[in-house]
């Protein structure tokens, strides 16, 4: 199972904070998303490492998709 977590306004777009998905074979992140997300000023981390929408997601991965904010 892979876990996808959405933060900030991305959660509003996807309408959930977290999705748990069973993946048969590795898939690109963009193919796993339920809706199209903006790709500018977005941070993608897979298992806390820098990634992108074309990165491959494997079972047991945790994917964080974060807006690029600047902490006040």
């Amino acid at each position, binding site marked *: 199972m892979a876990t996808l977590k959405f*933060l*900030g306004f991305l959660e509003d777009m996807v309408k959930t904070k977290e999705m748990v998905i069973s993946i048969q074979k590795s898939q690109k992140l963009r193919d796993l998303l339920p809706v199209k997300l903006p790709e500018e000023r977005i941070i993608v981390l897979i298992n806390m490492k*820098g990634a992108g929408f074309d990165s491959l997601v494997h079972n047991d991965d945790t994917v964080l998709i974060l807006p690029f904010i600047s902490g*006040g």
Partner: protein
Amino acid sequence: MQGYMGAILRVDTGRRAAVEEKLSESMKERFVGGRGFAVRILWEEVRGVDPLSPENKLVFALGPLTGQAIPSSSKMVIATKSPLHGGYVDANIGGRAPVHMKQAGYDVVILEGRSEKPIIIYIEDGTVKFLDATGIWGLDTYKAQNVLEERFGKKNGMLLIGPAGEKGVPFACIMSQRGRAAGRGGVGAVMGAKNIKAIIFKGSQKSEVFDSEALTALGREGYTDIQNKDAFDIWTRQGTMMVIDWANSIGGLPSYNFRQGVFKFAKGINGDAAETIKVDRFGCAKCNCRCGIVVRDADGGEAELDYENIALLGSNIGIKDIKEASALNRIADEMGLDTISLGNCIGFLMEASQNGLIKDKLAWGDFAGCKEIIGQLIENTGQGSIIFGGVKKAAEKLGGGSERYAMHIKGMEISGYTCQGLPGMSLAYGTSPIGAHHKDAFMSAWELPNRKSYGRDKVEKCVELQNLRGGLFEAMTVCRFPWVELSFGVDWYPKFMEACTGKSFTPQVITELGDRLYSLMRSFWVREKGRWDRTMDTPPQRWFDDAFSEGEVAGCKLDREKYDQLLSWYYEIRGWDQNGVPTRKTLEKLGLETL
């Protein structure tokens, strides 16, 4: 250059006299506004003084964009020699006061001397009145604001202090409108030392701008653009509180006195939790974002929440309930205490208690104990007296190895991001010109994809962000939130500046402005401290020694040698020597006096 009122008001509070001075073209050209004006004035006029003496000065400064019809332009810089750390400090505040100060006719107000008795300074369209404040001295900032609004109405801008400022707590802040704060470094203590309870601005004047039609059109387009941003809805619902989950997810949420970056109970204090107890929203003048989230707290009061407040008075001290964290936030605002320093101080005491260094137990998450400590802190009694001077002095008093977890840089407590796993952000904190604060450069988001790197690119980005945020934005002087939180393009601002001032703000001009301001702020520090070395720009021991033990970031800590390399590159790029002191060549190049 246009966009200014063209006047500085110098107020001698001891003699109860005020004089107007012309704002010179050279000041506008070289220092632009806000922080630029403030640091220039402090450099020239405040030398070797005790921060709480009549000789210290409190500078209120605006920029050309302040109060113009563009997004989020009600912002002000308040600067002084800090009673917390003895170096340069400035703090920002929004609300209505910045717009009204400009309309009253001034770009800068300088408070000097010390009034014999508590006073209110009332400034309206070029007239200055010194009014008796005896009746409101001692009132908290909410009650004092109510009394002042009954007397003067709401169509003005009020800045006031609470009991913390009156009693000289070195991290007392200046408040406005029940929850807005010029928070850091003790600007409220300096105002209190001058016996000033409140300053009220009111006016009807307007500044001349270079191209009024263009500025109005740009402003209108800007407001619309912001409203259409993807993040606009959540921002107006949660404001900066949305950052709790964000910081927690990356292992950057200060928890248990910065020991951990992940708080297991974050759901109890996050933006969603805040929404469940929200009763109102607050916005500054000229802003369409209205990021202030007002909630009903555990004691039935109304608190205006921000990320920093809840990170430091929530997870950092083990408070798991948003209502309790909100109540501590509100009490701090009523007292006029910097919530960031307060959360650090309480976290420090809790850890000292855990280590058996203090007599009365103060456990993580002890809500009642926290309230008791705040009361003692204001009165400088009991265990509150340990933290009266901030965590650096508290560790010096307590000893027993407590300096290892006294979380400060340059004597200022650290704001809401713990950096064991964020080397670039730790450099931003280390080199922040006011002490450990994030407003000058926020590196975390930028460095996340490559968080373990100590590359030179991180140093270059830190300097670039400092020059933009700490240079341009602090000088223009407007709120940076539309840019940094809503992705409103930063390229709007040079356009605003050109239409307002008539001067072109090219990348080169912006870099030079940033370089000038940072070298001058550093010169002030070096002169006032009488010495400087690399330790002053280095984060506390905890970030190097105590690796996180929880969450996906477990094991992360900073590497001292690699941090030192970042610092060397930073000094090189800034044109400072390897002790962090601006070189003669750099100062001459920037048209600044040598040390």
